[in-house]
């Protein structure tokens, strides 16, 4: 395209600023909602993948009052603080078909040096653990020494690398990758460190944990082991517990995530359709008003293809500007509000890696720009076939 063509496109954009900017804003909204949908869906997928890989247990044993069926409490990091009788762990380990069983301990401190809010502490047995340790091993490779803790990704650690609970200092030896739920605001410690916690708490008059009474037991089964038989054995021996199979741990998470995805994609689709319709209608009106202008260009020697290109160029300018603005807006919005989203949707939400974000941005840039331009394609072709005599006569 030549400079004059650009000038015609540019001057026409600004000759109807309200209409042009209105279309830009509409396309920007479509682009932003598209980007948000892609990133939102990817973030849910990433969060779920991380959660799923962390929760590599075939079954979960929790106290009876834990509302696992309504809300996957443990998976979301909304921790239950009740505990199981101490005999459950040994009993579980001895059930035929159980390959491994490992306890976990959940409790909350009322105050800590790191944080304004209360902090969740999660204890695990490093000798038997198979769910937390692999996750921790991604960032921390050394031994779990007594008195050392690993911090969730959202825990602020000062330069000293120490954190204080009940006036007892603990050494933070590593920080974890984000999970996208409240576990990012938790402290993880081996069972020996949990005992130090317990003593420090007891010295302050708090006797709320016992390393003999775990909050949950996670187990993996032998191949061909029968979950029903195992759970019947547990239910036959203990009254106040629940045995949750792996499938049920994720059911409500998957269902909730699917609903959110459908909602955000529907919103993005609606905005995209509205933007396409608006561009089509606006360009149809605009080109009708400008028939004389196009006829004039033909008369002075513009090829018909150039007339089509002018219409497509105007459409691309509007759709492209909207797509750029929308992509910027969408990126800033989802990055800025990700914590708020994590807090409110109550399911794992972790932004995907930089490459996936980049791809989403490219998609959000090009899809509305291309759809917006294509929306005016039929009109551009019509303009390219304009009859000079009729065009000049019509609004003489």
């Amino acid at each position, binding site marked *: 395209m030549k400079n*004059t063509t650009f000038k015609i496109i540019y001057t026409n954009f600004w000759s109807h600023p309200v209409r042009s900017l209105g279309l830009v804003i509409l396309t920007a909204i479509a682009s932003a909602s598209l980007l948000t949908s892609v990133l939102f869906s990817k973030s849910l997928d990433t969060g779920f993948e991380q959660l799923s890989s962390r929760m590599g247990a075939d079954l979960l044993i929790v106290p009876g009052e834990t509302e696992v069926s309504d809300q996957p409490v443990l998976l979301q990091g909304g921790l239950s603080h009740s505990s199981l009788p101490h005999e459950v762990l040994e009993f579980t380990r001895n059930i035929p078909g159980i390959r491994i069983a490992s306890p976990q301990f959940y409790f909350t401190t009322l105050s800590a040096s790191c944080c304004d809010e209360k902090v969740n502490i999660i204890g695990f047995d490093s000798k038997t653990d198979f769910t937390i340790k692999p996750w921790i091993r991604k960032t921390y490779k050394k031994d779990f020494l007594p008195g050392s803790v690993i911090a969730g990704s959202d825990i602020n650690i000062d330069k000293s690398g120490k954190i204080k609970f009940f006036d007892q200092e603990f050494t933070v030896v590593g920080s974890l990758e984000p999970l996208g739920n409240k576990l990012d605001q938790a402290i993880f410690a081996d069972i020996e460190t949990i005992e130090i916690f317990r003593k420090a708490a007891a010295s302050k008059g708090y006797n709320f944990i016992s390393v003999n009474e775990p909050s949950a037991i996670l187990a993996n089964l032998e191949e061909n082991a029968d979950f029903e038989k195992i759970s019947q054995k547990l239910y036959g021996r203990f009254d106040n517990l629940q045995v949750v199979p792996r499938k049920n741990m994720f059911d409500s998470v998957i269902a909730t995530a699917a609903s959110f995805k459908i909602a955000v994609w529907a919103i993005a689709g609606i905005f995209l359709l509205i933007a396409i319709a608006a561009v089509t209608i606006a360009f149809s009106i605009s080109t009708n008003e400008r028939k*004389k202008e196009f006829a*004039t260009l*033909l*008369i*002075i*020697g*513009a090829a018909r293809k150039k007339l089509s290109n002018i219409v497509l160029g105007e459409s691309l300018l509007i759709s492209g500007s909207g797509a750029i603005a929308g992509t910027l807006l969408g990126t800033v919005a989802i990055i800025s509000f990700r914590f708020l989203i994590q807090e409110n949707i109550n399911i794992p939400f972790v932004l995907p890696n930089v490459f996936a974000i980049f791809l989403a941005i490219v998609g959000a840039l090009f899809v509305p720009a291309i759809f917006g331009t294509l929306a005016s394609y039929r009109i551009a072709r019509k303009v390219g076939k304009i009859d000079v*005599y009729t065009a000049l006569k019509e609004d003489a």
Partner: protein
Amino acid sequence: MILNGNNITKQYTRRGEKFNAVNNADFFAWSGDFTVIFGESGSGKSTLLNTLAGVTEPTSGSIEIDGQPIFALKDEERALLRNERIGYIPQNTATLPAFTVAENITLSSSLYNKKVDKAHIGALLNKLGISHLANEYPQNLSGGELRRVSIARALANKPDLIIADEPTSNLDEENSHKVYRLFARLARTGVSVIIATHDKNAFGYSNRVYHMKSGALIPDVGEYGNL
């Protein structure tokens, strides 16, 4: 330059019925000719000029410039031919409203990134009495001023064929004669001028006259023709 039109027919459909706006017209013009096509409104003059200018393809017949059938050219080639060789002044004044008068006039040059001959444009504006309007926008101009802008734009690229449809329709008698004199001077330099009009004042400047009636083009050999 030789413009030769043979058996030109342009058919339109009006209320479901076909009619020939131009019917088997034969037309011929040399370099240096000042040709007037005289006829009532609706006789087909504008349609004929549109076909001669290469903007409307005839239903049948051929139009050749220097032996080249112009509708055998690709659209881009024909567009370039219009830009370089034909200055067309349509009946209804048409400009680009977001461009100034000067920008409208130089549009035919800038469309193909050609260097604008400022001295030539300045002289044209002076001759047409619109040099003071160069930086105005078309919406601030009267009908007569817009008509003169159209004429200046058609002449900006120094075409060797000028086709003008009622070029003096919005002009007073003095300005009409000014335009005719300008066309006559151009014809003397070898430019072929074709105007469609019902202003009989044009006959005094022409050397060839055609009459147009109900789509038929009839060479005038009588009262006004072949001076």
